[in-house]
């Protein structure tokens, strides 16, 4: 129940199944396994494993020129790039910015998603199907399009809410990060809500009946029974949200045409893109490696921390 990353999928050994039957079919099965796994394996190697290795190698190379105008040559530079990464204040500012973003936006988004899922699962609501679709609809809006739409809605001259936008400039340097946070929340709350909701639907209803016989209120059932049971779903959405936060690119990049407050290094991924178009691929590769490691570590720490809390 609590393992999210590795659900216990080990097939239950068929009791009393004769062992020799398995041995007889092994040859054909082995060929089948190869045919099933090979296509994904090849593509995974080509478009995941090789690029990762390539990025690591690139990040360790550095460009050297003979004289000022000599032809550039890539030589092994060790950790020169990484030294530059750690000295690059713009990159670390962008990391700090998305971390602040994540600390605020992810709990709000997941809190709302949980609330909506619990309401959808409660006997209180009418028109559940409508709400489910209405809340999920923004997920069908690509990030770029969502940013364009909200960019118009935020713009003082175009916004239908000019009573608000004439008072508060959402595209100013102070607020633009939260303007992006609102777009991300708008797009993904419904998606997260549905994941949590479908795991609520999987809980056998006898549990609630038993609790009700014991005199539990709807609120107690929700808070003390439902929430603990959907923790795995919340952890899953949490990990995806952390990855998404560190990957922020399309929305701020698009909003740049509405707001001058978004710099070319606003998020780590924007910094990578900007560095790569300079072009300094080696430094961009080092940024990517650091970023991928950070994503890994954060997701892992989050998984461990939440699982420990659950098992107490």
């Amino acid at each position, binding site marked *: 129940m609590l393992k*999210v990353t590795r*659900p*216990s*999928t080990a097939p239950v050994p068929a009791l009393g199944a004769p062992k020799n039957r398995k041995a007889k079919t092994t040859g054909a099965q082995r060929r*089948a*396994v190869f*045919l*099933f*796994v090979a296509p*994904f*394996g090849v*593509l*995974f190697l080509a*478009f*995941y494993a*090789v690029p990762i290795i390539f*990025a690591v190698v*690139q990040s360790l190379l550095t460009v050297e020129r003979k004289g000022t105008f000599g032809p550039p040559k890539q030589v092994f530079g060790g950790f020169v790039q990484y030294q530059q990464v750690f000295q690059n204040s713009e990159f670390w500012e962008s990391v700090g910015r998305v971390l602040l973003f994540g600390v605020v936006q992810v709990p709000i988004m997941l809190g*709302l998603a949980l*609330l*909506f899922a619990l*309401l959808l699962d*409660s006997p*209180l*609501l009418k028109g559940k199907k409508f*709400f489910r679709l*209405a809340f*999920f*609809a923004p997920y*069908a809006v*690509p*990030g*770029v*399009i969502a940013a*364009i739409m*909200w960019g*118009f*809605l935020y713009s003082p001259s175009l916004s239908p809410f000019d009573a608000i936008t004439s008072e508060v400039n959402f595209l100013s340097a102070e607020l633009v990060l939260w303007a992006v946070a609102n777009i991300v929340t*708008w797009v993904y*709350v*419904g998606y997260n809500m*549905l*994941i949590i909701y*479908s*795991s609520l639907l999987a809980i056998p209803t006898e549990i609630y009946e038993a609790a009700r016989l014991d005199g539990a209120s709807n609120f107690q059932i929700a808070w003390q029974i439902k929430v603990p049971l959907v923790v*795995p779903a919340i952890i*899953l959405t949490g990990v995806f949200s952390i990855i998404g936060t560190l*990957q922020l690119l399309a929305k701020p*990049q*698009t909003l*740049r*045409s509405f707001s001058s407050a978004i710099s070319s290094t606003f998020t780590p*991924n924007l910094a*990578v893109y900007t560095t*790569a178009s300079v072009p300094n691929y080696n430094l*961009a*590769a080092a940024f*990517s490696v650091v970023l991928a490691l950070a*994503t*890994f570590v954060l997701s892992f720490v989050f998984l461990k921390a939440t699982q420990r809390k659950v098992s107490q």
Partner: protein
Amino acid sequence: MSRSAAMLIMGVFTLYFLTPIWWLLVSSSKTGGEITSTAPLWFTADSTSTFLANLGSLFTYGDGVFGRWLANSALYAGLGALLGTLIAAMCGYALAKYEFRGREAIFNIVLSGVLVPATALALPLFLIFSEVKLTNTLWAVFLPSLVSPFGVYLARIYAAASVPTELLEAARLDGSSEIRTFFTVSTRLMAPALVTIFLFQFVAIWNNFFLPLIMLRDQVLFPVTLGLYAWNSQISQIPELRVLVIVGALVSILPLIGTFLALQRFWSSGLGAGSVK
């Protein structure tokens, strides 16, 4: 919590979620000047004709490049997700239903692939593709989209839960080959998971921005998101593009909403598979 409080919360948030889409629909039926000068959330008297005129200019502007973008997105996302789902399903199914050496190792590697940010892959992919002269081609966007580690993960847990081993044994006794059993028996049992994987991969590819952004120069190869992004960043020089961006944005989200509505019956039952175990 009372019924009315619950309905109030959901009602307020319905406004939050739907108002931007409603605004997009209304604005698509206005001329450039009307967008700022008329009531922003309601139609004008000649909405229908303006909408049709906007739609017309959307598909004729720049030699009808918008139509190309839509077709490109349909190809990248439609065919990409279809093939990607099949490939992920076969792998996940093999990991769930066969015991072989290296099974757990493969699964763990694939799982860690879920955590690798797609943007971290895009840059090295660009460098590799430029070595083999594949940048600025359809393949540069299409091929990497076929890989879905999350699809394998979902297929594995769903196959483990929904394809009974006894059934596979029975098919074997009947003389059905492993491949045939997969395509005729197992894929049917895995249908909700397959639809879910397809949809989420479809959305992921349709929304993908960074990969096409760095791979493609030639705008006839752009997916619709990148095309609209390019138009949107030119609005300050070419103001008439504003209307096209708005109506183009509306047209580009309709296929996704349509796909979700059409397949809703199937995917909602597969959605929980990733989290409930």
